[in-house]
């Protein structure tokens, strides 16, 4: 099995889709010669040309909206919003147009658009380049939201996003681009709404997304040394959500910690906690813990940024508190 990076996984999927389907094309700022600000689309313009790898002006509303329009015509555009912070500028087109045309038309319209974006803290860019906004999009009926944490999942979920007849907002985490892992020889589409259990365990379930999956894996190793057996469930798609896998895991371990990099308050983890208490209340031996960023914008100075975003120690402490409840 070949080993590829998360960045290559996204690129390979885009290339394969464009090779086999003339309806797939890309739009985004600096995605052609420069390959996007994260180098994800590097080289694609050489193979597919500028007609299908379209550099856009700095016009986030129009980028998303042109994607919506082309998608309604039956194309399968993949647009890139350079930093997810700037998806705020595309929100009207995504939230009020893409997410609602099908419903408002009484089921006549399909919007098979994929909006790729990336972000995340940990490199001190300051408050306007480091937020995690997946929770905002999960609040919108009509959208789907994916957030892969591994190369295999990035490749397979992106394929499914492109071929979904709904708009998918596809989150990539900046710090994951260089991670390398084995992938299957050929691209395997991954069905939405199916969690991946990264590690089985019996004492506590960690539900983690994005970068925090990798933090959770390290925490699980440490915890094992201290005799705590951790199960890690990565939903991979936040909308639709594989509630069964999460609930079944908690029914087995009787404890649950939810973690993501976005601020904890009103975050995706709050929804997981609500679902778990609703469906597995009698199985819980401890309150559900949430580990995420503190409720501040992301500060610049590295010592403060470190303090705001969640790390291994924070997750480990939550795991131990949960287990200590008996």
């Amino acid at each position, binding site marked *: 099995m070949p080993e590829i990076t998360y960045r290559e996984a996204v690129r390979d999927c885009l290339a394969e889709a464009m090779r086999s389907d003339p309806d797939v094309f890309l739009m985004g*700022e600096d995605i052609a010669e420069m390959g996007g600000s994260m180098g994800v689309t590097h080289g694609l313009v050489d193979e597919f040309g500028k007609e299908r790898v379209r*550099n856009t002006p*700095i016009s986030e509303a129009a980028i998303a909206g042109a994607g919506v329009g082309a998608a309604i015509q039956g194309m399968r555009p993949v647009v890139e919003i350079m930093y997810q912070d700037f998806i705020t500028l595309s929100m009207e087109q995504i939230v009020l147009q893409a997410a609602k045309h099908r419903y408002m038309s009484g089921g006549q319209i399909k919007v098979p658009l994929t909006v790729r974006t990336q972000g995340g803290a940990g490199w*001190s860019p*300051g408050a*306007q380049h480091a937020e995690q906004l997946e929770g905002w999009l999960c609040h919108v009926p009509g959208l789907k939201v994916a957030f892969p944490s591994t190369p295999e999942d990035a490749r397979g979920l992106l394929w499914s996003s492109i071929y979904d007849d709904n708009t998918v907002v596809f989150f990539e985490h900046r710090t994951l681009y260089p991670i390398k892992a084995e992938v299957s020889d050929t691209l395997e589409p991954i069905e939405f709404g199916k969690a991946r259990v990264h590690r089985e365990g019996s004492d506590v379930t960690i539900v983690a997304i994005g970068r925090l999956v990798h933090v959770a894996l390290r925490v699980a190793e440490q915890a094992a040394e201290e005799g705590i057996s951790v199960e890690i469930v990565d939903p991979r798609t936040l909308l639709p959500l594989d509630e069964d896998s999460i609930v079944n895991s908690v029914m087995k371990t009787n404890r649950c910690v939810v973690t993501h990099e976005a601020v904890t308050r009103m975050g995706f983890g709050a929804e997981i906690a609500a679902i778990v208490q609703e469906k597995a209340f009698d199985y819980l031996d401890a309150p559900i813990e949430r580990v995420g960023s503190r409720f501040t914008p992301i*500060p*610049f100075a590295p010592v403060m940024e470190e303090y705001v975003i969640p790390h291994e120690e924070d997750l480990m402490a939550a795991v131990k508190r949960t287990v200590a409840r008996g």
Partner: protein
Amino acid sequence: MKLEEATRLSGETLLSFLEEMLLIRRFEEKVEERFRAGDLSGFLHVALGQEAVAVGVCRTLETDDVIASTHRAHHHCLAKGMTANALMAELYGKVEGCSGGYGGSMHLYDLANGNLGANAVVGGGLPGIVGAALAFKMRRQPRVAVAFFGDGATNTGSFHESLNLGQLWTVPAVFVCENNHYAESTPSRDHMPIADLTRRAEAFGMRSIVVDGQDVEAVHAAATEAVAHARAGNGPVFLLANTYRLTGHYVGDPQVYRPKGEQRDLRATQDPIPRLRELLGVDEDSWSALETKVAATVEASVEFAKNGTDRLPEDALLNVYA
């Protein structure tokens, strides 16, 4: 555009412009050096080549006139009166920094000098400048609000909405477009269908002035006229300064998108600093005295920053709400 004779500057004033431009240049080079050395974190955009625009415009402004800057902000900050110490300390994330270590290179504030902040959102500063100018107008204050932005920013909705509203309400604003011919990797011809950006202002009935942004005297004259127009209550002006970015988009940019030799050629022909030096006939001795003076300021700012006070981690919880 015919410019008033009265705006011609004395040699002494121009020499002070030269010093300021050289300070910006050496400061930016130091930033590049310190970033490469691993001292500085985050995301840095320097303004090598665009010094004359910042100095020429800001030198026409009063302290209580305000500016909004961009992701490429160091030159505006220094030109609007921020000390090199406060700027460098911010880049080092220190308490003594202009934003107390909360902001970083793309979020530099200096309210005492009328600097409403750098902005990491392209086009993000323009609407606020319309609002600041509106406040001045409503309070009958003779103040002017100035937005700096790049050619790339003229493709944002914020740009078009701001120019429209600013003109509709005839607020005392000046919109300074630093047309460096690139938005990141994308040359202007690939991001806009027209070559003449003043046509965008014309669409709103706004007056525009075009100026060679590598000629600080011309920039100053044009800005003087634009600011006077706005201050007199005649509405906003679109000031288009044609300039060049003599380096990458960000520090570390491999610039794969630049035609070979372009940067070298631009450095040889479009550098505003040797141009002003030549105009003023600054001899070797005076030049090296200037270099020494500027280098001392820059070195001192690095020392100041390094010896600054580190933030406590939990300081992150402060300042979220007023």
